[in-house]
């Protein structure tokens, strides 16, 4: 599993760790082992036979949020997350994954999603039945984190669409509610592939898929095909779908949004899917005050700590990373944080309940 990453592992071991300052895990812990360099060194030594592949080594590979900020500071463009995910796959195969990870997988398999709830039922009580149409060509895929934690954002999504006279978007019924990324992140590739097959069958008729969750968008677009499941190639994040329409004046704006906002670029929306402008364009359409930026933003945005399965295996680390990101929110005038990812929202809310955290769609909904 790791052989094909020989170059990444060697380059990482011999590198001068110039990405160190950008690694959210390294910054939160101050620990050299938890830098890309430290983790690659361990894998190199395992490859050399100088270190046993044991649980401690495997645990180090679970300390990566997969945010990919390190690549921004690597001239060789080494993609550390791919190596860490392959190492996790090996950890699972060798039964060396963290205990939390094993429990998580059991829980997921029994209940078909990471929350353990009947998410399809939740969704049915949330939206009118007219919004569900199994034959629809344009489908909204809410994703499990959104259904479980942010039902109001789902409602707001359909309010915004309705206000724009868009009635051709149906809501996916969520019988396979999760895109599977939590399994993928924990190294359960077989379970991920199985989930992907089921999901592929459910979404096979969709010609366009829209989701408010960047991880879902990336998984459906990139990782499902890697697992042999090809969906439509027209998969969009909600902000990509809405931005051109709102720019055409389709959104009836009754009142501008007047409070101060700072925008957080989610890693999967920004660095993975290259969507930077659309959320800002949408906010600029409805906000009276200019949108504030973090000093680390756009391509260099800093992680919220919610990615790479870290909240499952290393919850304290996840909290510390989010708190670091929130320092700038507390500076200067009072403001709310706006983003376009339910996992980021969750990570921030768990780390600090004094900050108001919104989705771009929530802001739009307040203006119609």
């Amino acid at each position: 599993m790791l052989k094909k990453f020989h170059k990444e592992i060697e380059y990482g071991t011999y590198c001068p760790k110039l990405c160190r300052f950008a690694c959210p895990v390294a910054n939160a812990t101050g620990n050299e082992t938890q830098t890309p360099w430290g983790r690659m060194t361990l894998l190199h030594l395992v490859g050399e036979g100088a270190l046993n592949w044991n649980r401690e080594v495997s645990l180090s590979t679970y300390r990566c949020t997969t945010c990919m900020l390190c690549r921004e500071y690597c001239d060789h463009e080494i993609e550390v997350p791919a190596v860490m995910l392959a190492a996790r796959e090996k950890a699972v195969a060798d039964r060396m994954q963290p205990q939390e990870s094993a429990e998580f997988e059991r829980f997921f398999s029994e209940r078909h999603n990471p929350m353990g709830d009947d998410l399809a039922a939740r969704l049915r009580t949330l939206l009118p039945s007219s919004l569900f149409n199994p034959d629809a060509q344009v489908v909204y895929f809410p994703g499990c984190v959104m259904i479980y934690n942010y039902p109001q954002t789902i409602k707001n999504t359909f309010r915004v669409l309705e206000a724009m006279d868009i009635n051709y978007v149906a809501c996916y019924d969520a019988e396979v509610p999760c895109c599977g990324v939590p399994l993928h992140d924990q190294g359960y590739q077989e379970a991920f592939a199985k989930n992907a097959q089921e999901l592929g069958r459910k979404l096979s008729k969709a010609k366009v898929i829209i989701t408010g969750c960047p991880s879902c968008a990336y998984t459906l677009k990139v990782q499902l095909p890697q697992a042999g499941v090809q969906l439509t190639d027209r998969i969009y994040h909600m902000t990509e779908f809405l931005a051109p329409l709102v720019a055409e004046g389709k959104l009836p704006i009754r009142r501008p949004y007047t409070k101060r906002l700072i925008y957080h670029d989610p890693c999967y929306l920004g660095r993975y899917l290259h969507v930077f402008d659309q959320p800002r364009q949408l906010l600029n359409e409805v906000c009276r005050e200019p949108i504030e930026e973090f000093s680390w933003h756009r391509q260099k945005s800093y992680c919220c700590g919610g990615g790479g399965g870290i909240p499952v295996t290393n919850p304290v680390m996840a909290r510390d990373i989010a708190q670091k990101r929130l320092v700038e929110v507390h500076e200067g005038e009072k403001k709310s944080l706006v983003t376009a990812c339910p996992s980021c929202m969750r990570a921030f809310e768990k780390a600090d309940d004094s900050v108001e955290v919104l989705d771009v769609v929530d802001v739009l909904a307040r203006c119609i």
Partner: protein
Amino acid sequence: MTRKATRKTTNVELLNQLRDVLGGRRVSRGETDRINYGRDLWPRSLLEVRKGQVPHQPEMIVWPETTEEVSRVLRICNEMRVPVVPFGAGSGLCGAAQPMCGGVVLDAKRMARIERIVPETQMIVCQTGIIGAHLETELNRHGLTMGHFPGSFGTSTLGGYLATRSAGMAATGYGKIEDMLISMQVVLADGSVIRTRTAPRRATGPDFNHLFLGSEGSLGVITSATMRAHMLPEARVFRALSFKKMDAGLNAVRRMLRAGLRPVIARLSDEADTLTTLHALGVEAKDCVLLLVFEGRAVRIDLEMKKALAITRELGGRDFGEATAQRWYGRRNSEQYRQSPLMTDEKLLLDTVEVSTVWSNATHLYTAMRKALSKKVSVLGVMPHAYPEGCSLAFTIIGRAGRADDLAAYDAVWKLALDTAAQAGGAISHAYGIGRLKFDRLAQQNPAAVELLRGMKRRLDPNDILNPGKLAPCTEGAC
């Protein structure tokens, strides 16, 4: 007698006591941590790790967050006679942070709080575990800059800079780290804390800042520092010039500085460096290329650049324009990345020898180093920093071990480099420090200074717990 034999404790007692101070999460004795704290970025350690070896591992790693915690950790270790190696980000290039005698590595990076930024007086007070790039980002948000940009900017700490007397890429304009230090707080081996006074200049006896500057963790743990910052520059101007010979380029820079010009960067490559490093970065110029950067008030820097160009013309230099230099500036950190692909070749050796001297000796030192080293390895020569009285010279050496063991070949090249530097009148380090790499040579070259250091060490750290074996021979000599 080995150090371990002098120990008054078992690992378990030590662990328990450290956990009492720091809690479980900030003390580790895990194998993975011991491996990763067993080396800094000394290229010799890279050769070892390439073979799967990390020979000098600590027994534990601790992450204190306050001066008080550092003090308590040191008190425990001093009482128990356990070595403590202060550790910044482990970017040192001489093995200074390598725990030769085992013991406890004290990682300072969780001490990264900025205590105060005073834009009116351009000062910053902060803990020393802060990473250079983080410090600069914060200063920039307040309209300030540190002016300290070592190639390791993203992976080195303020404490490391102070403890090695580091020089950034813009040292010609902003000075070395010692020029930016105002005061510091240091924890001594017995846990006592001393502070030097924050005042612009003092005449209160010897300046104790200089006792700890460059002390490489062997005299105390620097926990906080008050630093001089600078206003962010209003503008920046660039130029790439070239000279047929190094001598002419060195002379041009000397004359620029004597004329009162203060480029922030004056980096002169020899022909070999131009053809490899600079060409790889898209700098299309020939011969010995001088990259000049002035920054500050637009009016001033335009005048300075005019004068610099006049000096260049007088000395027969050629002008490759602004865009060429800007291209280099945009990619200036890329040269730091060449190590990884090269090191995958299992016989390859790579390092940088950096020395300094006065102008009158610069050409001689450059020529002697290049001549001696070229017999064994490929050499890329650069003059990276200049001062009114002299300059530093850096030689990237790339070679193959041939049939010899790569570590032995590496040691032989370094012996030659240091012998040549000393014979040709150079200082054996300009900014990277001494560490394990240059200690023997320092002791040979300047036994009186080493004896004095040993005396200070005996006074400040009688049990020799702080980074033993660095800057003064390890007392037991058995590690």
